[in-house]
């Protein structure tokens, strides 16, 4: 409050209202001014803006109630002090320099934003407007400072800024994720596009959901034509002879019902294109499982025409190679025989011996070629294993007839011990069975001496039949027994008796046996003889 008003107030409080009314004090101009100031002051105290009036050096002469409310400094603490010292602690030197320059030197209104330091040390944000008041001589008499509190506004602005930043971050993250997804999709698409194999995805009913470009090309169907249709109907499958393979037998159906991955093993699967042509195909189907349920399947397939061609070429190469190797060997064989038959004159003992040697070496070559070619064909998996019913008894009967002359030439008696046998039928490949037994019997004959007997027999077990060939020949030395099934291995005593053996016979026999699901083993004693066994299952596997 301005000095000089106190007396008057004290006077008025002592008197009663009635008495106040009766006293008429002559209103001087000064009193009128004081009253006006009083009214103004009350008006200022109603403002929430801080109002300070300072002298031209910044010393506070007056401060409204809002100053105390906002800064925490009371009126008595504020009057006579410099506002900068009181609550200007948060502002830089530069700020005050600029402020003073504007208001004192330039004598212009200064408007800025300040952060005040409250008495308790906390901050408040204000706009600062300082108005210089000049007299008639343009000298500064007072500064009037008005400070609207903008703390809330500032807080709202900051919150907005924070929200903007947060939103921007979220947007950026989303953008990044979107780009990642797009990149991943491009990668997946590129992968599916570039895979040479056909990929078809179906739902758990076998309806097509997805097809990659390779599948479209191979099958002649576009995805939008095929989607939603049953794969089994859209793409028919056939076997070699052109017979349709029913839907339930196809890998897709099996995979969906059993939830196991399925691959076609045999080369007898052909897919029929939209235009009716067909191609051989290798198929693998994997079921898709989610939470323990099968929700669909993915089929991957590729055209094996090239591989089949290659296989055919390989096969025909082997055939031609075998023919080309046999031809000169048969030539030398017959030429030597012709000489041995003395068609071109008699022979000295020495010449006969040499011709015999020549002949043996040639025979060895012939057998080697034969065995190696058999071996190559077996190894290439080229041989199809047939499933035919074979009667054991009649089978042996045929064999005895076939091998009879070879046995006779060697002076061996071939006995069929199955004559009184109860007929057992096995399901197997006749040709392969014959090859195995021929090999065992011709070994028995080769390693027996004239007058010996070779017995052919068979035994029945629950699920299998056992064939055996028993001889009383040279037998296999104990320490060499574990090696006779090795490729090219020849037992020491066998080499003496039959120098032209190749060492491949038993190895090939074992391979054939495996092809028909069988096993070969033997019992033997050197000098006494050997019995070779072949067990095959009664029912052909797979």
């Amino acid at each position: 409050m301005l000095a000089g008003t106190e007396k008057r107030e004290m006077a008025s409080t002592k008197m009663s209202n009635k008495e106040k009314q009766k006293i008429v004090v002559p209103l001087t101009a000064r009193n009128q001014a004081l009253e006006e100031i009083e009214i103004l002051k009350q008006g200022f105290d109603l403002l929430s803006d801080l109002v300070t009036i300072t002298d031209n050096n910044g010393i506070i002469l007056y401060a409204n109630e809002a100053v105390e409310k906002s800064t925490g400094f009371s009126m008595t603490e504020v009057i006579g002090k410099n506002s900068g010292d009181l609550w200007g602690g948060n502002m830089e030197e530069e700020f005050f320099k600029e402020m003073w320059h504007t208001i004192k030197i330039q004598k212009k209104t200064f408007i800025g934003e300040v952060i005040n330091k409250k008495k308790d040390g906390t901050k408040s944000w204000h706009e600062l407007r300082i108005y210089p008041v000049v007299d008639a001589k343009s000298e500064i008499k007072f500064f009037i400072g008005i400070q609207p509190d903008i703390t809330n506004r500032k807080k709202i602005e900051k919150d907005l800024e924070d929200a903007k930043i947060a939103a921007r971050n979220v947007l950026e993250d989303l953008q990044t994720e979107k780009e990642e997804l797009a990149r991943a999709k491009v990668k997946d698409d590129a992968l599916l596009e570039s895979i040479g194999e056909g990929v078809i995805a179906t739902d758990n009913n076998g309806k097509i959901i997805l097809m990659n470009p390779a599948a479209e090309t191979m099958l002649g169907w576009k995805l939008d034509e095929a989607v939603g249709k049953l794969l089994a109907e859209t793409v028919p499958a056939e076997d070699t002879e052109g017979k349709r393979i029913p839907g339930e037998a196809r890998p897709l159906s099996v995979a969906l019902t059993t939830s196991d991955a399925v691959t076609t093993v045999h080369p007898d699967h052909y897919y029929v294109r939209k235009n009716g042509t067909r191609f051989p195909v290798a198929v693998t189907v994997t079921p898709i499982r989610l939470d323990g349920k099968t929700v669909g399947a993915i089929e991957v397939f590729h055209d094996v025409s090239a591989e089949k061609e290659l296989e055919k070429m390989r096969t025909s190469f082997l055939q031609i190679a075998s023919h080309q190797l046999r031809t000169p060997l048969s030539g030398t064989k017959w030429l030597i025989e012709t000489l041995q038959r003395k068609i071109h004159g008699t022979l000295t003992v020495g010449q006969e011996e040499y011709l015999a040697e020549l002949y043996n070496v040639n025979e060895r070559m012939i057998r080697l070629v034969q065995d190696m070619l058999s071996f190559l064909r077996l190894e290439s998996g080229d041989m199809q294993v047939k499933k035919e019913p074979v009667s054991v008894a009649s089978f042996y009967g045929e064999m005895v007839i076939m091998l009879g002359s070879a046995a006779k030439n060697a002076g061996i008696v071939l006995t069929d011990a199955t004559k009184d046998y109860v007929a057992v039928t096995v399901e197997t490949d006749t040709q392969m069975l014959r090859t195995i037994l021929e090999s065992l019997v011709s070994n028995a004959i080769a390693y027996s001496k004239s007058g010996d007997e070779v017995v052919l027999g068979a035994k029945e077990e629950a699920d299998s039949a056992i064939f055996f060939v028993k001889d009383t020949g040279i037998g296999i030395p104990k320490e060499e027994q574990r090696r006779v099934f090795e490729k090219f291995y020849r037992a020491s005593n066998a080499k003496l008796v039959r120098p032209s053996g190749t060492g491949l016979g038993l190895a090939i026999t074992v391979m054939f046996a495996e092809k028909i699901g069988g096993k070969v083993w033997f019992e033997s004693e050197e000098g006494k003889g050997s019995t070779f066994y072949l067990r095959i299952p009664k029912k052909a596997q797979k």
Partner: protein
Amino acid sequence: MKKVLIVEDEEFLVRSLKDNLEVEGCSVDVAVNGEEAIERVKANQPDIVLLDLLMPKKDGFYVLEELKKNPTWKLIPVIVLSNLGGDEEIKKALEMGADDYFVKSQHPIEEVIEKVKEYLEGKRSVKA
């Protein structure tokens, strides 16, 4: 004298067959490919044909077909002598009318000669 036609492109095989057959008292004619074979049959009909399968120009299957579709020639016995040992070839030749099939490298020449004699002496019947 019985006439044998050897259809074979490998000289050394022809040589040994010819020598062995002539010793048995046969007269031997030779053709080195399928075309020549049919010409020789026309010119000098044999009593038996020994037939190789793989030959240049026309092969043995061609000769077999020509022989068996001709009313006169189809009665001539044909023994196939080939080094093609596959089941399919053997089956095919026999189905086309060959009377016998020898894989050369697997039989002594003596066996072939004996078989020829059997056919010539009428001891074996011929596929018509």
